[in-house]
């Protein structure tokens, strides 16, 4: 009996010690501040929200940004326009590899400053080959270099998008106008889409993005360039907060050579339709059947 009691006491002591050690081990979690409020945490999927819900969420994000960064921003949720199918084409004959598009993306989309993230990677390729294996995205010399040409790669907004298929929670989907979006407040951060994308178009927030308040672009979209939370995926949205309001993507506006052509594929008189009809156009990794909305062409 006394042995039994002793054993029980020892077990209880062990259990107490274990429990307190466990509490100490998970203690760092108390410092964790997920970006959203309780309301935001418990809200429904984007597609189940009413226009009022969405507007309320945008106001909430504006208020949160005021608290976290001390600045006034405007968060809108522009919807796809009827009769518009966005497409993008890039003229490889005149791109000089200056990477101003990548820099404009970095600024416009409120990317993390420390990693110098951008949705665009520009590859320097040898003339005479279109093999990306011989390319270099980390070149650091004056451009255009002799014997080289340049190929910027960003999200291809595929019609048969592997990233959309694999998402277990429908946190990423294709909108009516062809743009593939991510709801940063729904994504669970499993990164399956990042593994699935054949164009290295997706990025993960490995930490909370760092950006000085005065550098934040206040003109924001809920599904595009608002400051992202930690631990979620993000991607190029053809700057939908601009393009759905009739403006052009930031990367296009920054291009000094006019290599970029953006427009409505559903409009037979658009520039992009003219390019597709008249230039030597190709798409990247045609064999994968992803049906991109991003086209490359040569004109000389």
């Amino acid at each position, binding site marked *: 009996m006394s042995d039994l009691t002793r054993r029980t006491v020892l077990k209880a002591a062990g259990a107490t010690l274990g429990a307190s050690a466990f509490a100490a081990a*998970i203690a*760092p979690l108390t410092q964790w501040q997920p970006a959203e409020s309780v309301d935001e945490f418990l809200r429904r999927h984007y597609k189940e929200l009413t226009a009022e819900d969405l507007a309320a969420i945008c106001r909430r994000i504006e208020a949160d940004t005021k608290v976290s960064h001390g600045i006034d921003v405007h968060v809108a949720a522009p919807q796809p326009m009827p009769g518009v199918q966005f497409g993008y084409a890039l003229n490889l004959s005149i791109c000089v590899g200056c990477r101003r598009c990548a820099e404009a993306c970095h600024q416009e989309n409120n990317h993390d400053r420390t990693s110098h993230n951008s949705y665009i990677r520009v590859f320097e390729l040898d003339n005479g080959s279109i093999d990306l294996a011989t390319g270099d995205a980390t070149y650091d010399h004056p451009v255009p270099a002799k014997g080289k040409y340049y190929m910027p790669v960003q999200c291809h907004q595929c019609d048969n998008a*592997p990233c959309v298929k694999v998402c277990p929670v429908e946190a990423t989907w294709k909108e009516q106008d062809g743009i593939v979006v991510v709801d940063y407040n729904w994504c669970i951060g*499993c990164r*399956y889409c990042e*593994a699935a994308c054949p164009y290295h178009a997706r990025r993960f*927030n490995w930490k909370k993005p760092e950006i000085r308040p005065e550098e934040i672009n206040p003109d924001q979209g809920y599904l595009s360039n608002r400051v992202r939370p930690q631990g979620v995926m993000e991607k190029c949205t053809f700057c939908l907060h601009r393009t759905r309001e009739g403006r052009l993507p930031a990367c296009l506006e920054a291009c000094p050579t006019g290599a970029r052509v953006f427009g409505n594929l559903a409009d037979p008189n658009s520039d992009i339709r003219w390019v597709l009809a008249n230039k030597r156009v190709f798409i990247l990794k045609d064999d994968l059947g992803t049906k991109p909305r991003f086209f490359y062409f040569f004109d000389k």
Partner: protein
Amino acid sequence: MAAIALHRPGLLPFLRQAFGHATDGGPLFYAWMTLLTCIALVGVNAWANQVVSGMQVTGMGDHVSWGLYISNFTFFVGVAAAAVMMVIPAYLYHDHEMHDAVIVGELLAISAIIVCLLSVTVDLGRPDRFWHMMPGIGRFNWPISLLTWDVIVLNGYLGLNAWICGYLLWSRWRGTAPSPRLYLPFVFLSIIWAVSIHTVTAFLYCGLGGRPFWNTALLAPRFLASAFVAGPALIIVVLLVLQRLGSYPFGDKPVRLLLRVVQITALINLFMLAVECFTALYAGSTHAASLRYLLFGAHGHYALVPWMWSAIALNVVAAGLFLWPGLIRRPALLATACLMTFVGIWIEKGMGLVVPGFIPSTLHEMVEYVPSLTEWKITLGIVAGGLIIYTLLLKIALPLLSGWTPGLSVGVEAMDAQHRQLFDRLNALVVAIRSGCGATELDRTMDFLDSYVREHFADEEKLLTDAGYPGLEGHRRMHAGFTAELESVRAGLASPQADRQDLAERLHLSMRDWLLRHIQVEDRAYGVFLKQRLC
């Protein structure tokens, strides 16, 4: 008059005893559990820090976006699936000896699945949002996303094995024969399900057209082949350790059978690796870039080369050892060979499969991956957690399966106490024979059992004579039959050319089962008779 029945113990005492069994043990047990707890807590702490600081504390990045966690996940899915290599002989071929040992595999499946689920959870950037995956309150992208299939099959497999083990142990505790209707359909379902968990996990990868290294139809068969090497190898090690610890009063036929399994599967696995290498390398297409990087390095990057060649060497040497007929008589070497192939496949299927899928990247950039300290801590913590669960489950299950349980009570306290002793002494003899101890010690254990059997039978028959039990004659004949059987085992042990393993098998297969059924049926019958007389 209400029907007189003996009391059947309920669920609460069952759980209480299970908890008691799980937390009682010798110094070695407590040392083992303390060690595992410490490792697990280091993992928990590392994970808590990762949640706060973000996944930047890992070695992953936008180029290699899955690493050690998903590698470990993939590997342990295979370990879980391998339980089926014991379930099939036990239930499809009615291998009696496997019937007792199969629970060792099923409990391993439960623990391995928990390791898998934890490994995926720690890989999530937003674990707080895991509920977004729940049908009803979240958005479950089924059937389009393969990940949702994996969620279903993994949790389903966990549920199936938990039910089968739980139900069989519960029946054993209650002293009732399990109803085949309540577990056999689930057993057969679990066989198909085991194949599905691994196939679906392979489909996670091979369904991605943008990753040529994974985009091969051979992936699922390879996954299964390697699972049926690593899983049985681990179970062999577990059985050897349990035998060594004397906490496994069962036969070593399961070890022999599992060794026969890995002899074949180890070769099939190597064959498939060779086929994969030939197809990619001989054609020389750019699709072979990842494989070339893995085997030989590329563009000045060699991080995975030593890993992969170690894996190949470990698997080749182990496969050779498995084929050597003398291996079964050398437990230490057998365990070493099993551990070699276990580690070999862990590398091949983890670091050697998941990571090179990202190198070179889809845009052919070469960015390498090395797991960070945080990733190692969390991964080891999860494995330690799995081992804690497995240890506790085994500690609950093995005594229940081989010993006396309250469900066997005949309502006479003195007889219950003697029955308990009978099981304990019978098991002690089985363990003594198996451990290959000397003749004197064996004799002592035999005497210990033999004298007790006679004493108990005499006591019981006296009790029944005094009570005027009508079935006494038949009962006495059964006792005599058992004593004679014991006598023949003793004679067998004394003879110099005795096959000790065979005798041990007779003891625990036929004699312990006889004892179990005898108490369940005949002894309970006199229990009911005695209780009726008292009323």
